[in-house]
């Protein structure tokens, strides 16, 4: 579904990614693990088009999308939940969702489906997103991404800084979504346990290079933990 091949990228004069190749098979979950500052978010920004790579290419379903703007990638079926529970703070919860549903023929049903996944958002519909708790805002962010009915979802640390009970809920939802089929996911995670449970494919990123990769599943967890601890 997604091929990130030999990507070199960074900010101004600093290079963060030194030739990274990551691929997400169709209807599967690939996870990227690594320490703070390894370049995980940078990799997702390149995949989404917020950052143009200096070298390398990004392919979606075989099509070279390296030069497309982010909104054009959304139109081709990509969705992205950035790190840090981002929202449009002065729009209400409902407006945050309508914004994405506007102009989509299936917008209403897609919104209803997303709200079914996160029922708490229904009670918060009139509240400004900036006033929501971190966990609520993250649920809103995932719901907003799902309204576009993506075939590829990029998730950047979806459970970072969120209280355990909500973490479990978000993890369950993500697992359920990926099992339903029709959706490929590129998941950046710090929680190795959850990441390996969700993923069919893993990559360990260290200082902008893939240092270890292989098949996912809980069986591979010790290998990954060892790779991360060096």
């Amino acid at each position, binding site marked *: 579904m997604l091929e990130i091949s030999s990507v070199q990228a960074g900010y101004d004069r600093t290079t963060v990614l030194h030739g990274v190749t990551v691929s997400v098979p169709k209807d599967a979950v690939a996870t990227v693990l690594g320490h703070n500052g390894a370049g995980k978010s940078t990799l997702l920004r390149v995949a989404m088009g917020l950052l143009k790579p200096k070298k390398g290419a990004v392919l979606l379903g075989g099509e070279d999308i390296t030069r497309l703007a982010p909104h054009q990638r959304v139109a081709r079926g990509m969705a992205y939940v950035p790190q840090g529970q981002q929202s449009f703070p002065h*729009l209400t919860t409902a407006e945050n969702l309508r914004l994405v549903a506007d102009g989509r023929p299936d917008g209403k049903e897609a919104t209803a489906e997303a709200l079914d996944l996160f029922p708490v958002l229904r009670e918060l519909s009139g509240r400004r997103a900036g006033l929501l708790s971190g966990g609520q805002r993250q649920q809103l962010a995932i719901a907003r991404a799902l309204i576009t009915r993506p075939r590829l979802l990029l998730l950047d640390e979806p459970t970072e800084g969120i209280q355990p009970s909500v973490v479990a809920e978000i993890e369950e939802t993500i697992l359920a979504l990926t099992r339903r089929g029709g959706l490929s996911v590129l998941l950046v995670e710090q929680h190795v346990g959850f990441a390996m449970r969700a993923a069919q494919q893993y990559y360990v990123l260290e200082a902008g290079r893939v240092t270890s990769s292989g098949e996912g599943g809980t069986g591979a967890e010790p290998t990954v933990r060892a790779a991360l601890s060096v």
Partner: protein
Amino acid sequence: MTVVLNQSFTGISIGAVLLLIALGLTLTFGQMGVINMAHGEFIMAGAYTTYVLQKSISSAGVSLLVALPLAFLVAGAMGALLEWLLIRRLYTRPLDTLLVTWGVSLMLQQLARDVFGAPNVQTAAPDILTGNISAGSVTFANNRLFILGLALLCVLGLTLILRFTPLGRRIRAVVQNRDLAEVSGIATGQVDRITFFIGSGLAGVAGVALTLVGPIGPTMGTNYIVDAFLVVVVGGIGQLKGAVITAFALGVLQSVLEYSTTVSVAKVVVLVAIVAFLQWRPQGLYTLRTRSLA
């Protein structure tokens, strides 16, 4: 008492003019953060649109009514073109934006001189707007009432668009988090252009209104542009209601002071009051508050 009422009405009508010229800036400057020095020339374009129309439509009333939407389109198109040609390349460079649009402002003034001549021109107001309405001992000039109504109508229209339409949601979303809007599937560049179109179009409407109270000339925009920026800054960046309150407050303050002193003293006092206010509240009258800035 009569004097107070009459002066207050004068103040409110000055405020209405201020509000009309500042309204477009609440979008281009307030929402998008662009200091567009050519905004005044979009006002001028609206005024000359009225002038040109009146040459071909004999009824002053009809030409005024046609001028309002036409000036909106003319000034709006100029704004969208400016955004597309220059401003969008300079979004991260405010100083360059200021200098470049200042240059454009001077070029547009020269263009107006070449096309319409340097001396000021005048349009005839429709008969219905030349009279007065008296209520007791208080007199309301019809043209001033018309401008007040127009200003309020524009505020209402803009508020409704921003609050309740898909376009309004997009404009607000792009302002609040551009990258997030883009990755949510919104063509942010296109939204910028439309925002600029509406903001500049409103300057054109202001230009039409100004033909009712003064002459039309190549530099008419520059006379108003500073006041317009002041209204937006004092009102609080990105805040429509702040601009509304500020425009009327400044208008009333100005007219009351003009009554008790002279026009230039009044101007100075208003400016000092603004500076003092901004020392006390640099963020302006209203600011947006949230739990986080994410």
